[in-house]
């Protein structure tokens, strides 16, 4: 109704009004607008009422308690930045952070490379090949990380599959210490995060212009050369996006490292857990949490700057 009136006013204006008419037109416009303001479009209120519950819920249940945790980090056991100094000053805490970053780097490189091979076949393979890799990537993706961690223990522990086979084959006399090492932690996390790296990679590969590859082939480039000089650079944004996702997820990962590290290869998130439930040192746990949030926030900001095209499905 209001829309129709405004249209009428503007059509009146366009008919070619004199100066005196202009005042009346402006008055009519003001009247139409103020009528709109007096009887507000109720969809705005509906919209606000619809958004409010979730925003309030998260403010109470998530944001306020997080501020509480942040307060712990500067008040427990006494007021000050002492806990943050320990992050670099305490050799144990510092070594945990160094290990965490080392594992993050290794996992990122390995899983992005592994995901690249999978995504390549998933996007460019024949129908059967696509189905097979899709199956191999989606089945683990939908299975609980507890089951998968248990699977790695079944493979790697002293009486597990690998050691049993090697012993039966007479290759080793005593079981190899494969589980409860940084090695098993890296394998376990890589296994969890590889599927997450596949999706952005596949989406950037799908948007590669086939004609460019054809041109390279027509000009006589070998397969390997086409891959290194044309295909890989064209999917670089996908690689960056996948790497950041894997790195960020690894940084705060708790469950898989806690199981496969066996208390020996402790990462930052597990240190929080230990400091909360084994040797109560909540201030340090809170300080690590706040630091992790800051790191993840910085990395996510970088992700949205650099790799937005890869995430929303195209690097055109």
């Amino acid at each position, binding site marked *: 109704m209001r829309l129709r009136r405004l249209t009428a006013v503007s059509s009146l204006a366009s008919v070619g009004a004199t100066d005196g008419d202009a005042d009346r037109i402006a008055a009519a416009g003001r009247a139409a607008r103020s009528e709109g303001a007096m009887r507000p479009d*109720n969809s705005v209120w*509906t*919209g606000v*009422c*619809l*958004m409010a*519950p*979730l*925003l309030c*819920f*998260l403010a109470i*249940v998530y944001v306020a*308690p*997080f501020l509480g*945790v942040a307060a*712990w980090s500067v008040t427990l056991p006494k007021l000050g930045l002492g806990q943050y100094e320990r992050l670099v000053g305490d050799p144990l805490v510092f070594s945990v952070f160094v290990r965490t970053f080392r594992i993050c780097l290794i996992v990122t490189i390995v899983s992005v490379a592994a*995901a690249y*091979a999978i995504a*390549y076949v998933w*996007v460019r393979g*024949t*129908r059967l090949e696509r189905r097979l*890799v*899709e*199956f*191999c*990537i989606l089945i*683990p993706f*939908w299975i*609980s990380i*507890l*089951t*998968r961690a*248990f*699977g*790695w*223990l*079944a*493979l790697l*522990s002293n*009486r597990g599959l690998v050691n*049993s086979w090697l012993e039966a084959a007479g290759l080793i006399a005593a079981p190899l210490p494969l589980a409860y090492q940084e090695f098993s932690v890296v394998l376990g996390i890589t*296994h969890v995060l*590889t599927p997450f790296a596949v999706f952005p990679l*596949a989406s950037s590969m799908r948007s590669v212009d*086939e004609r460019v590859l054809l041109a390279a*082939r027509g000009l006589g480039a070998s*397969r390997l050369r086409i891959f290194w000089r044309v295909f890989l650079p064209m999917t670089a944004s996908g690689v960056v996006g996948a790497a950041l996702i894997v790195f*960020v997820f690894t940084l*705060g990962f*708790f*469950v898989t490292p*806690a199981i496969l590290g066996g208390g020996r290869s402790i990462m930052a998130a597990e240190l*929080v857990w230990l400091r909360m439930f084994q040797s109560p040192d909540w201030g340090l*746990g809170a300080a690590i*949490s706040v630091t*992790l*949030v800051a790191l*993840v926030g910085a990395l*996510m900001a970088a992700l949205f700057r650099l790799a937005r095209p890869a995430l929303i499905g195209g690097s055109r």
Partner: protein
Amino acid sequence: MIQRPGPIALLLAGLVSAFMLAPLLAVVPISFTPARFLTMPHGHLSLIHYRELIDDPDWARSILLSLRIGVVASAIATALALAFSLGVWMIQPRFAALMVGFVLLPMIAPPIVSAMTLYFFLTSLSEVSGAIGYDTWFGVTIAHVVMITPFAVVMILVALAQVDRRIDLAARGLGASALQRIFKVILPNIRFGVMMAALMAFFLSWEEIGVTLFITSVNAITLPRLMWMGVHDNIDPAVAAISVVLIVITTLALVGRMALQREEIV
């Protein structure tokens, strides 16, 4: 014409695929071991660990608790997410991106941080009443709602992005009220997406462990919490048995979906 992957690419992808399936296959023989600890069966197969799943009431109890929490949490999460997404879609507020980012925080923040935050919240709530805070099914449900709602928001926003705004504008021009527009025009168009969001939310609650671990101790033992005890605290081959059951269900569901699906995802 697309140049299909060469032998090197296929070999590498095959190796990675084997790596992805290996730990899932490895639990199968372990689940048939007659021993009480993690070892290979060595020619002697036994079903005692499957029997234990039925005989030990803890497993049934934790499965029922997980189902209950999953249903309640996903219902609340879907409702909150649906309302929020509809609001954002309908009025397109100036700070829409900021608000969506705010709502997605629990998905982006490291799970350990969410765990500590929710531990803080639920222990504070326990001081109000012991029945609704730390280590209660109600507390776990609230925590799960926080953790799964962002995923539901993402899925519903994606569904809404497919809706043609002109349909809504037409309804508005013909004088439909906001509620009529929601129930008669928008919701019928995103039905499928909302259903998928609810399913996803249920699934995420069903297997949530990172936060659950921090906010439960002895009373509210969900299935993943029970499995955690059988993997982390001591190695119990019954976990292999329940894992095999879950793997079989997941595989059947996925194969069924792939068989039903006519066109390719790619």
